[in-house]
């Protein structure tokens, strides 16, 4: 179980698989580079991302408001008449929206062009795992702060991640924990922290939820609602029993008790495997991954190295069998088309229609990954949106993809060579003979491989079931 593959097997196909899963895919020259540097170095390039410098600055607006600023703003709002107040509120909402759009562009760019693809892939994983929506927060700064917490702990320590998220201001608002107090404990976070974040349904009792809610009281926000504070006066000091242990438990005690359950490693290790492999793990595999996590004192990085090196990860049922998430589809398509991302608002509407609007997960359970990404509706959307990514769309400020640059002169001079290059660039799942014949017939009816023909052929090729997989 979890034995590394033989480094001699390392080739273009396996390197492409790693680039797709640990990152967001990429063009043939990147895959060739990974194939050439060898297995160990390729794995290390992704997993040891803390050794690669990351010069991306934070967005200029991403700063907490000081207490004075907050006081001033609140006073101005209080002093305003109802009409002015609604104008003030509208202006603030629109500024927040603008910042959020900027944040989306900032993050997508990190995915598409950043120096640490696995860190961004994991940040996306955590956003899906601790799914928090702007819908309720209406605060771009808090979304950014949480995104940075995901990034900072992306391959870090599981215990630490859970602690930081429990006191993350966005999470405190999202699951109402900041409104909870000893007289009226709110169960929302208490339930989800066990059900969705750390143990899974069936690994705790309803009583544990009720008692955890009491233990978690004390967590609060300052008056600006941007910073976590602990308020001992609202903490329930009575005895509680959580996961079999009784005492005057507080939030840190509860998180420790959760982490002491072997299920907490199994739960997150299994979920990470599913995320990267695209198929659920066997029981034995889950146990083996959880064991790796335990061995490294809950540190993800060594486990991820084992995962990405393992024979299981490169097995036939894993290779090329994952349905691309909309984010993977969008970022990956831009990368293989050698094009820049569309502007943030366009990306936002594309991801919305494909069912994965970042910063707006459908609920606290996150998105439903896997084949469910594809419905009749979403498949057609993918086929129609890819046309815009290739041909461009001035109305949505999408430039055409520089398709001619993707192929050599020799490839553009010969239709068979062109189709072979097209397949190599875009497909890990081979097209069928009948599909190749369709594309060949399409080309045969055209005189030359001019730009329009190259564009249309790529569009058709990417409008296939095979392209939806990675």
């Amino acid at each position, binding site marked *: 179980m979890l034995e590394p593959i033989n480094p001699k097997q390392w080739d273009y196909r396996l390197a492409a698989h790693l680039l797709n899963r640990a990152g967001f895919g990429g063009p043939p020259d990147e895959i060739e580079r990974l194939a050439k540097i060898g297995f160990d170095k390729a794995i290390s390039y992704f997993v040891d991302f803390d050794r690669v410098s990351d010069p991306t600055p934070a967005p200029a607006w991403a700063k907490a408001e000081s207490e004075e600023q907050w006081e001033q703003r609140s006073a101005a709002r209080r002093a305003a008449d109802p009409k002015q107040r609604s104008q003030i509120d509208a202006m603030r909402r629109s500024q927040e929206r603008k910042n959020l759009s900027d944040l989306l562009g900032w993050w997508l760019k990190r995915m598409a062009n950043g120096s640490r693809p696995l860190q961004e892939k994991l940040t996306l994983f955590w956003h899906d795992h601790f799914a928090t929506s702007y819908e309720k927060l209406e605060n771009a700064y808090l979304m950014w702060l949480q995104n940075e917490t995901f990034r900072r702990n992306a391959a870090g320590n599981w215990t630490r991640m859970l602690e930081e998220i429990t006191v993350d201001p966005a999470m405190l608002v999202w699951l109402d924990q900041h409104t909870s107090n000893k007289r*009226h404990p709110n169960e929302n976070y208490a339930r989800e922290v066990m059900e969705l974040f750390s143990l899974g349904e069936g690994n705790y009792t309803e009583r544990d939820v009720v008692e955890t809610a009491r233990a978690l009281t004390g967590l609060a926000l300052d008056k600006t609602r941007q910073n976590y504070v602990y308020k001992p006066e609202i903490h329930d000091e009575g005895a509680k029993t959580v996961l079999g242990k009784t005492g005057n438990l507080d939030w840190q005690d509860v998180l420790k008790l959760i982490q002491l359950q072997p299920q907490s490693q199994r739960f997150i290790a299994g979920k990470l495997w599913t995320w990267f492999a695209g198929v659920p793990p066997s029981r034995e595999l889950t146990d083996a991954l959880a064991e790796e996590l335990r061995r490294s004192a809950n540190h993800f990085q060594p486990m991820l190295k084992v995962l990405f090196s393992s024979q299981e990860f490169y097995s036939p049922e894993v290779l090329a069998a994952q349905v691309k998430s909309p984010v993977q589809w969008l970022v990956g398509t831009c990368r293989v088309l050698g094009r820049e991302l569309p502007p943030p608002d366009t990306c936002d509407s594309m991801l919305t229609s494909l069912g994965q609007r970042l910063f707006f997960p459908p609920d606290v359970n996150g998105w439903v990954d896997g084949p469910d990404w594809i*419905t009749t509706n979403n498949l057609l959307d993918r086929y129609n949106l890819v046309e815009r990514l290739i041909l461009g769309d001035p109305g949505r400020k999408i430039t055409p993809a520089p398709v001619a640059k993707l192929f050599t002169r020799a490839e553009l001079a010969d239709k068979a060579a062109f189709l072979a290059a097209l397949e190599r660039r875009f497909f890990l799942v081979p097209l069928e003979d009948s*599909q190749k014949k369709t594309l060949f017939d399409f080309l045969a009816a055209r005189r030359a491989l001019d730009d329009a023909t190259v564009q249309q052929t790529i569009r058709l090729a990417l409008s296939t079931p095979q392209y939806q997989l990675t």
Partner: protein
Amino acid sequence: MNPPTTLKTRREFLRTTLLGGAVSWTVPAFIDSTFTALNSEAADKGPQAASRDGRIVVLLQIAGGNDGLNTIVPFTNDHYYKARPTIGLQARSLIKLTRELGLHPSLAGLRSLIVGGQLAVVQGVGYPNPNRSHFRGTDIWATASDADKFVNTGWLGRYFDNACAGADPTVGIAVSRQRPLSFAGKSGKGINVDNPDNYRFMVSSKDDAGTMATTQQSYRELNQSSSTMAADAAASINYVKRVALDVQVSSDQIIARSKSIENKAKYPSSQLGNSLKLIARWIAGGMPTRVYYASQGGYDTHINQPPAHERLLKDLGDSIQAFTDDLKALGHFNRVLLMTFSEFGRRVKENASTGTDHGAGSMLFVVAPKVKSSLLGKYPSLAPADLHQGDLKYNVDFRQVYAGVLEGWLQTPSQPILGQQFEPLALV
């Protein structure tokens, strides 16, 4: 752009494009077996086998856990006001159903249906060992499983499998981007449509007509070409191929039939309103669909419940009113049963944030041409001694309601679909 006008059933589609000789490549195994089944069961019997009298079910998910207690209010019950000193609704504001029960005032849209004997409130709906998780709760309702069993097919998917052999994939339409788990079944029938205007393969109008036609033709071929379903092929590729095929079978008729009809009622401009508006057009336009699925979210009212709940119920009541008025005007109301559901009700006692936490045992609405009674089931007791961990106890298993829909309305045996025999609730 030329709006495509040809309507094809799956059967015609398969025959003309796959077996008609125009296309010479191998027939994929799964299409082949589908076709064989079609041939033996339904081929050449005219249009696809419709349900009896062309009856239709519209399932309306109200997601997040609707507060049943504040939807239908026991306004003479002291326990109610004691448990809900802040958010309890006062008797005078309610739409009275009986001397003890009243509807939330925002549901005024439902008044004419109540008067007409076309709306039933099913009270005290739930199941044994209720689960307070949104996700598990929703899955239990979708799969109709026992609370301690995990099932990966939905009750409507099993209805399609059991009772709709030979039907088009459009036998079920969910107005959504994501497929509801209720639709999951072995035969994979049921499609998703978010906006019919975009429900087609678009070719840039820069090209001349001839080129556009060639591109369309190539797209069709590329997405039919699932040659052999190799045994070792990943399940995911086979799944996407089938969806690609369903798209082609359904695209033309989805567009044409949503355009052939004009709505005759004014709907709220909400997501729910728009979904029901579309469904009314498909029904009147002659889609062979038996089950429609629409949803409305936002019922997870942990905080500051009153204004949110008011807004949601108003949207719900007004949308249902518009939908039923529309169907009546279009002459199709007699074919339609609409049923709402929510994954759970809420805790009897309000919380510290002027809201309510997850609970159990709740209620649902059924709208049909003629219902047995405007109140079905019993209103659960609110006496603290009668509660289970602060939650209402159910007296109608939700699967009895499903059995009532299947047997009483769709006139098909419910046992093979629900996996157990439930006493059908007499709805209609």
